């Protein structure tokens, strides 16, 4: 019994002394932030993150090579702690964003040829600026859907549809779209201009049935100074109250309302008053 104690005392002291000596003698300066991050990780050194141990993972996070939630074992509490250390705090002022598509072309836009090439919007853009008469619209080939690392984009009827639940607003699709149609908007924004055509009204409508024709009716209808027509109608999301006034007056239904992740066409108020919707439903211009 005594022997056990003595041996372990000696062993402990010896190893402790050597290690203390070594760590003092061979001390290498490291960033305190890095050490804090490593501290915050579980320290199981299980390797589940794919990095060599917790310090490897910590280093990768510190160098920005890995996201703060890299540790699958620690889960979200660890991620939040590390985010705090890294100074990436969840900004409560900013509303959560989601990606949306600024085109409602699909079959509404006239095609000029039958494109049977590769399903790559980049390539389509390089072949006569795409198969649509409208040079600004969506080709429907799904480069954004392929680029999305979260499978949040799905091609439905030739247009990308963003699943708001899966979308993390990472902005990859915004960069991927050669037509610059993807936009990150506040999640609670309901009213959107679904057109990016900056052509003159006449040219725009002749290439696509649902193009913005720059009639400026929306500008007049808006009580909050939230929509303006430059090259195309643009909503100022900080001012917009989702009152739908602009969508109601838009003659080409270029301004649409999203409800529960789906597009809802707003019937113009004029129709409600007169009771007859024949003219506006058939009217293209």
């Amino acid at each position, binding site marked *: 019994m005594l022997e056990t104690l003595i041996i372990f005392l000696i062993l402990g002291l010896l190893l402790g002394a050597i290690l203390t000596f070594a760590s003092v003698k061979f001390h290498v300066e490291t960033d305190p932030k890095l050490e804090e991050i490593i501290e915050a990780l579980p*320290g199981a050194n299980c390797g*589940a993150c794919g990095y060599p141990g917790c310090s490897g993972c910590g280093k990768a996070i510190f160098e920005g090579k890995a996201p703060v939630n890299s540790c699958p*074992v620690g889960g979200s509490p660890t991620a939040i702690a590390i985010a705090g250390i890294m100074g990436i705090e969840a900004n409560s002022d900013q509303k959560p964003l989601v990606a949306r598509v600024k085109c409602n072309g699909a079959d509404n836009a006239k095609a000029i040829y039958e494109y049977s090439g590769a399903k790559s919007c980049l390539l389509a853009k390089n072949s006569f600026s795409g198969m649509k008469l409208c040079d600004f619209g969506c080709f429907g080939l799904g480069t954004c859907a392929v680029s999305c690392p979260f499978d949040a984009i799905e091609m439905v009827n030739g247009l990308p549809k963003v699943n708001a639940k899966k979308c993390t607003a990472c902005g990859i699709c915004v960069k991927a779209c050669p037509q610059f149609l993807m936009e990150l908007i506040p999640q609670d924004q309901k009213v959107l201009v679904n057109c990016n055509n900056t052509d003159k009204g006449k040219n725009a409508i002749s290439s696509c049935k649902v193009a913005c024709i720059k009639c400026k009716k929306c500008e007049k209808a808006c009580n909050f100074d939230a929509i303006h027509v430059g090259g195309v109608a643009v909503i100022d999301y900080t001012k917009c109250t989702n009152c739908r006034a602009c969508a109601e007056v838009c003659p080409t239904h270029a301004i649409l309302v999203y409800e529960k992740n789906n597009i809802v066409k707003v019937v113009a108020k004029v129709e409600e008053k007169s009771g007859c919707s024949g003219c506006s439903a058939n009217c293209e211009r």
Partner: protein
Amino acid sequence: MKISDIFKDGIYRKNAILIMLLGMCPTLAVTTTLSNAIGMGISVIVILTLSNISISIMRKVIPAAVRIPAYIGIIAALVTIIEMLIHAYVPTLYVSLGIYLPLIVVNCIILERAESFASKNNILHSTIDGIAVGIGFTLAMLLIAFFRELLGTGAILGFTILPASTNMLIMILPPGAFLTLGIILGVMGHYSNKKKEELENE
């Protein structure tokens, strides 16, 4: 923290083997028969609970800088005690568990629980966590061992069920261990994916 949550986390929501994928070495090595798996499972439950208790007690005493070596020391001491107990009372199990019994020391589950739970929670919660995670570990081992023993030797807990001609020796060899765990994880993944999709589509 609710006690039922700790139980749910330990047993299935964060199952050490099937979800967290920790402690793979004994999982694959000693699941050749159900009885081995039970022996290993009970050892882990006991050690995990004891280590959680002792670390929880000492959590305010141990300085942060040396906490990992200290934990390892505590766990190693506990393992040695259990090893001696099993050797004395269940020598057959001692032989069949072999080297994997002392290796519980380096089982990531125990260290992980110590570091991420016991060192931050009170004794009661830590005890329950130890038991729950241990049970989760044991259940997962039993699941794997069930398939391996049945397909490999045609028996369950030593009672022969299938005829000898259908025994697939390979199932109690290493490839069988990897294959069984891989397929179990895959099938589980299938169901959890389905659940996730349902949640997303709601």
